[in-house]
């Protein structure tokens, strides 16, 4: 075997021998979680947005906004937040995200979205938030906002903001709802899923 072939073989052997000792070649396999930093963001409520805030972002056509729906296709098809793309949780790592984008994750009730938030932060994406209440929060706050009969001034202000957005998204704001009914409808929605 001549000298050049021998050299080629050695290069291959060295590169191959080092491979088992190296970390995963996939970015997803090398993701780092700075738990302290993430905990600080959770405590500081920087990890999530409310459905109303998201609705305002969508209405204002905020640039580089990417809304990701983590639910199964059937649920996405029956109702999804306008502008949302459907992405299965296990495909989050393969998502190609540019640095400037603001990613908003949501799932049915928020658990998967919160997990997705940790995944994307671990992969190094800085502008990620999620909807804590999932699609139910959207339905509750944006599509069907309610104003209680004995609403406080704070609640009235909030309702004014919500009903304007609701009408924009084709929702049905309702006033004069007894408090008991208000609480019950939210509980019914939250009973299922993640």
């Amino acid at each position, binding site marked *: *075997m001549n000298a050049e072939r021998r050299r080629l*073989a050695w290069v*291959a*052997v060295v*590169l*191959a*021998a*080092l*491979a*088992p*000792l*190296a*970390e*995963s*070649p*996939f*970015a*997803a396999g*090398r993701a780092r979680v700075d738990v302290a930093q993430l905990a600080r963001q959770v405590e500081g409520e920087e990890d999530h947005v409310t459905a109303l805030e998201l609705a305002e972002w969508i209405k204002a056509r905020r640039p580089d906004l990417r809304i990701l729906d983590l639910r199964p296709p059937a649920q996405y098809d029956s109702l999804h937040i306008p502008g949302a793309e459907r992405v299965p949780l296990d495909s989050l*790592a*393969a998502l*190609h*995200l*540019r*640095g400037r984008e603001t990613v908003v994750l949501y799932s049915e009730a928020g658990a998967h979205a919160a997990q997705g938030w940790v995944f994307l932060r671990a992969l*190094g*994406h800085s502008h990620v938030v999620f909807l804590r209440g999932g699609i139910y929060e959207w339905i509750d706050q944006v599509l069907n906002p309610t104003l209680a009969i004995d609403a406080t001034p704070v609640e009235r202000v909030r309702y004014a903001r919500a009903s304007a957005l609701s009408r924009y998204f084709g929702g049905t704001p309702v006033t004069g709802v007894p408090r008991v009914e208000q609480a019950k409808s939210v509980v019914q929605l939250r009973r299922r899923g993640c």
Partner: protein
Amino acid sequence: MSAPLPLVGILGERSSLAIALVIGLAFGTALERAGLGSARKLAGQFYLTDFAVLKVMFSAIITAMLGLFWLGRLGVLDLAQVYVPETFLVPQLAGGVIFGAGFVLAGLCPGTSCVAAASGRIDGAMTMLGMFAGVLATGAWFGPIAGFAQRTALGVRRLPDVVHVSYGTTIFAVVAAALGAFYIAERIERRARHEVGT
């Protein structure tokens, strides 16, 4: 942040096709220079006289495989963005058997038949024609085999996942096996040369 490569979303169709042409030029050149545009040389692989097919193919595989691994590990290439063909276990096994038989009949494969034809070999052109007819016929009468073709669809399935070892360990094993195969091939070729008296 995502790795800079591959150039997702930056390349338009024209740039992508320009790259396709350049890649093809290099591909064809490499094949021809190795002599794989010659059906007799290719067939020699299966009569244990000329192992060029094995050497070229597996040198190429381990080069690209090591390149993918280390560029991925260094964060230069985002492996998740690279398209991996899906696994259809039984159809690919059957297809492989049929393809292998066809390969010995023709002495050329689809890529090398283009190189052969471009080098003036009429058998290369005939192989291309046969390939075209075969694909056309199979596609036209796909009904009966459509069900079979979809069997054992495992999606993207890599060797490391199947054998439950790390990606790096799998690469080491493949390179070791390839180098071993090269060594054996050299021995057989040397013996064949001695027997012929060259």
